[in-house]
């Protein structure tokens, strides 16, 4: 079972109290962008076995969106953090590095 701690209200709950919101840190490419960027934004997603970054919403709780860094194979959560950022904060990166040396995900490592 996936256990998440909402950084907005501090509640630690199991995953049915939350709703998954897909891959984190996407750049939205709209009108005027190249076909490649638009295709990438709309359709192409990471599907890692291991470290992954996602958006979650505390739907049966405070209602807020946040980010989570977790391992897709073990369900270990490295940390959760604010939705108001375009990249994982350093403490989250450090926490992952401590447990999964050599990890990488998109441009992050």
């Amino acid at each position: 079972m996936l256990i998440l701690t909402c950084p907005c209200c501090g509640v630690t709950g199991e995953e049915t109290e939350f709703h998954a919101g897909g891959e984190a840190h996407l750049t939205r490419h709209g009108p005027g962008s190249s076909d490649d960027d638009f295709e990438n934004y709309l359709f192409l997603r990471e599907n890692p076995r291991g470290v992954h970054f996602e958006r979650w919403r505390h739907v049966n709780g405070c209602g807020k969106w946040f980010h989570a860094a977790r391992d897709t194979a073990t369900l270990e959560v490295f940390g959760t953090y604010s939705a108001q950022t375009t990249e994982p904060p350093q403490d989250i990166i450090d926490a992952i590095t401590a447990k999964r040396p050599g990890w990488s995900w998109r441009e992050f490592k």
Partner: protein
Amino acid sequence: MSETSALNGRVAEGATTVRDAGLQGMITLRGNLASTKLKAICKEITGQAMPKAGQAHLDGDTGLAWMSPDELLLLVPHGQVAEVIARIDAALAGQHYLAVNVSDARALIAVEGSGAREVIARLCPVDMAPEAFGPGDFRRTRMAQIPAAFWMEQDGSLRVICFRSVAEYAFGLLSNAATSPAVGCL
């Protein structure tokens, strides 16, 4: 405003009793919870200080519950809601806020008796051990298939808030869970 509660006074008696807690005035207040004016009007209306995350400051049918970083639930007597909203509007004029009467969108159910913790624990993914949840604690969560919120009174009984449209379902869940003998772990 509705003249009758969704459950119309229903009671399921037992070692743990589940009963309709009747009409309760509820106001959703969204805004900056750190605002001095907002804190002052909440205190003036309920006599309570701003609760921390996961807390409710309540006395009978009046008080404040923390819903999210920018949302409070004000509980006031059912007949006073319109007047209270007018006072909030006057106090917060010019600020970014929202005060809405949600009394008729909700139902309030009381769970009373020694098995109250277990009844909630059977239905919600929440640690109901006394060291994890006690009087004054407030939690929004999932109860079986619906969203719900609850708090614990000083006497250890629980009050559950759900949407009015699912009050029947919620009462059925709670009263059914209350009929099972206590496991005794909580």
